């Protein structure tokens, strides 16, 4: 029950999904569509579970008074306000949109923009031409960076953007292709192992 059934389920669903892709029969197509919509239904449950875990973690932090435990209340406040307004007034409600546009959106964008600062700091402290390979990476990066902005063309008489385009189109493309081919083989081989029940680590440890 604990190990065999999941392995069988995994096998059956995997094989069915493979088969339906080789079969244009209307029954296969119907099955395909139906199972796809199941995956859409199962998804939200996982999200709710993740939220429950989040709530548990923060409740534990408050209970144990770990460092900065007061901020866990801020997490709850954000969560509850968003959920209450969203559920009762629907996501199209102006109040919900206001919260999204003025609270979530600016914070999300700002968080990621912090990386611009870190890149600059890393550029000064960490990016060193220590080896031949590292130098190649650095030089390409500099060319692409300059090719990505108009000032590069202004300083180099239009060669920067052409060089960037050539690099992206040629050596970059073949490297990507090599990676795509290799990683895809890895993904397919893992998928085969999963369907055949050889790879079981997703079941976690225990019996």
């Amino acid at each position, binding site marked *: 029950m604990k190990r065999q059934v999941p392995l069988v389920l995994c096998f059956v669903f995997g094989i069915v999904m493979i088969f339906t892709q080789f079969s244009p029969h209307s029954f296969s197509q119907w099955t395909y569509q139906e199972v796809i919509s199941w995956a859409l239904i199962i998804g939200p449950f996982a999200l709710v579970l993740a939220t429950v875990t989040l709530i548990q973690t923060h409740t534990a932090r408050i209970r144990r008074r770990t460092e900065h435990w007061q901020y866990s209340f801020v997490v709850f406040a954000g969560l509850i306000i968003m959920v209450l307004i969203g559920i009762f007034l629907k996501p199209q409600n102006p109040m919900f949109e206001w919260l999204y546009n003025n609270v979530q959106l600016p914070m999300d*964008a700002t968080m990621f923009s912090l990386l*611009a600062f870190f*890149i600059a700091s890393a550029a000064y402290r960490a*990016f*060193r031409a220590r080896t031949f390979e590292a130098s190649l990476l650095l030089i390409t990066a500099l060319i692409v960076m300059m090719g990505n902005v*108009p000032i590069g063309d*202004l300083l180099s008489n239009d060669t920067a*953007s052409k060089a960037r385009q050539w690099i*992206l189109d040629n050596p970059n493309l073949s490297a990507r292709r090599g990676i795509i081919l290799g990683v895809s083989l890895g993904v397919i081989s893992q998928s085969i192992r999963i369907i055949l029940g050889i790879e079981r680590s997703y079941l976690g440890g225990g019996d």
Partner: protein
Amino acid sequence: MPNIDRRIVFILVALAVIIPMLLSVNLPVSVSEPTQKFYDYVEALPAGSTIMVAFDYGPSSLAELNPMAKALLKQCFDSDIRVIGITLVVDAPTLASALIQEVAAEKGAVEGEDYVFLGFRPGAVQVILGMGTDIASVYDTDYNGTAIGEIPMMQNITNYDQIDLLVDFASSDTVESWIIYANVQYNQQIAAGVTGVIIAQMFPYLQTGQLVGLLSGILGAAEYENLVGAPAKGMKWINVESFVHLLIVGLVIIGNITYFIHRTREE
């Protein structure tokens, strides 16, 4: 090695953004081939064609993708191309809906006739596959809850067969999903506008023709604004961007010079 406080570098970055922005510098922008191809493909569509636009990005990528999405929408509404907006990303619908409405209001496009926004459905791959047979099987209503059967422009649209081009504005692996599932399986023509982070991995698909065109980050946005003839944020930001790139290039060079001096001294 002089290990300066990284906060000094942070201040330099901030200045490199603020000063050029206040001075509003203007540098000429040329147009790259993938952008031109994208533009030409859309331009060649006859009036009354339909484009599906997937707004697959959240707030963390709006700086790069909003300007290009706006430029494309302007072009579509100007040349009577109908737009179906969707998204595969959970934090996108509010942002995308606002964006479409903003451009539609400016261009006088009518909701339900010139454009429709269908919103978000979970399970990216399943959504893409589902629309291959029947869009209504995935989206029974639009974002506002109007039944799809009651939307005038959706009357003659069942699946990808009636969609002339799919444009994916993306910040993650969604372009690959669109290619693997919509292009390979349903032969849907696809063009993409992507963030800087994922540009490099798009080129294999461009060469095989799995992508008909590509806009790269804020530069692509500036180029497209240029082509459409509606300079906006993209053009303005790419100029500021120039100075920050110069600063970073300078930092790398200074860093390496000090590194080499240090190394020679050690030897």
